[in-house]
């Protein structure tokens, strides 16, 4: 069965299927423009601000739970992992850098690492920003802080401009924990096609993001 058919998770505005999903849970995509500044709220959480945390929790915990359910957790485990993810957000918020990533991106990586740990009993290998062997990022600028505020909105627009085929492979990768081989079996298409769709989809998103900068 294709992800789009059983799909629940992404509610962007482009396809018929996605329009149906919009009706199902009534969350128009332009709402983001009026939404709180999650990046600033996450910085407040780093200063132990409980009101900011409550706001972040109300928004992200149910979405992280959705992500965990979609990846195969049962409801109890999904609730547990979502709580653990948000607890980690509280504890590690001081490591969040708004010049490097949007709050949604950072929270996604926290949730991803937790579920890899929970499902596969291993760590997600990542470079260590404090490693002396690392080639450091160029210094961050104030522009980058502003630019990451728009990330979620811009990526949503970019996703909406992809073909259904392209969006589907991204969704299967991120939300269904499928390897490229599994995706090719799920969709009944050759492995090479899966890889080239992912490359094309990601290339288009990167181009659309760069165009807006």
């Amino acid at each position: 069965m294709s992800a789009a058919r059983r799909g629940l998770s992404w509610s962007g505005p482009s396809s018929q299927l996605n329009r149906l999903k919009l009706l199902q849970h009534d969350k128009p995509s332009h709402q983001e423009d009026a939404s709180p500044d999650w990046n600033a709220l996450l910085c407040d959480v780093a200063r132990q601000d409980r009101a900011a945390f409550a706001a972040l929790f109300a928004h992200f915990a149910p979405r992280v739970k959705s992500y965990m359910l979609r990846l195969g957790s049962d409801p109890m485990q999904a609730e547990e992992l979502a709580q653990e993810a948000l607890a980690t957000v509280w504890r590690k918020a001081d490591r969040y850098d708004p010049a490097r990533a949007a709050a949604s991106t950072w929270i996604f990586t926290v949730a991803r690492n937790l579920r890899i740990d929970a499902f596969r009993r291993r760590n997600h290998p990542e470079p260590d920003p404090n490693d002396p062997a690392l080639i450091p990022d160029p210094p961050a600028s104030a522009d980058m802080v502003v630019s990451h505020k728009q990330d979620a909105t811009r990526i949503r627009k970019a996703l909406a401009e992809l073909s259904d085929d392209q969006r589907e492979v991204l969704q299967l990768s991120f939300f269904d924990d499928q390897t490229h081989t599994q995706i090719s079996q799920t969709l009944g298409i050759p492995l090479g096609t899966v890889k080239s769709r992912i490359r094309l989809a990601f290339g288009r998103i990167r181009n659309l993001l760069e165009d807006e900068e």
Partner: protein
Amino acid sequence: MKSEHIDMSIQHHPDDELLVGHAAGELPEAWSVLVATHSALCLDCRARVYAAEAVGGALVADACPVEMKDGALEGTLARALEPRADTTTRAVGTRAEMRDTKPIFPQPLRDYAGGDLDGLRWRRLGRGAYHIPLVSGRGAPTARLLRIPAGRPVPEHGHNGLELTMVLRGSFTDGGQRFGVGDVETADTDLEHQPVAAPGEDCICLAVTDAPLRFRGVFARLVQPFIGI
């Protein structure tokens, strides 16, 4: 497109679909170790991984919310405030920083190798080559360190699957192309290739394969079942 890459000292990069798979968290561990190790040295690929993670962030931000249990916020805060040891402290990384020299292996590779290049226990592979298995499992992709003696070839081999080889020290040439520190060679199913280490110093690589290699030589084929590659 290779011309987009900023750091010109690194010429050969892993494909975008591997970077996206790494960001999504669906890549087998052996591949992820290579992607993360390369990203520590390659600003451009690190930026691409960030961009792919931002796609994940946007997908999660747009997920259909599923209601949390009553009292979930209070429960989460109580959990967050519990004292607990920080598990992310890396003993190995600390050691490298303390002796105040720049390690050869970036993180997370030092974690997997159990330390930096000096002090590793290499296993003989034949023809002057050595290896150290890092990640292996039945049927799962494997990652290992390879040490190719200066000026010598790796035994000629083809693949049943994908092989990625990242240079950590020294360099090798293969098919007329040079691969230096940070470069990643991608060898696919049909490619018969024979990396040759540059003269002067041994070439140390991180090699990841998703299928056993098929060595060409009779001797290599005889020993293959015993050396576990």
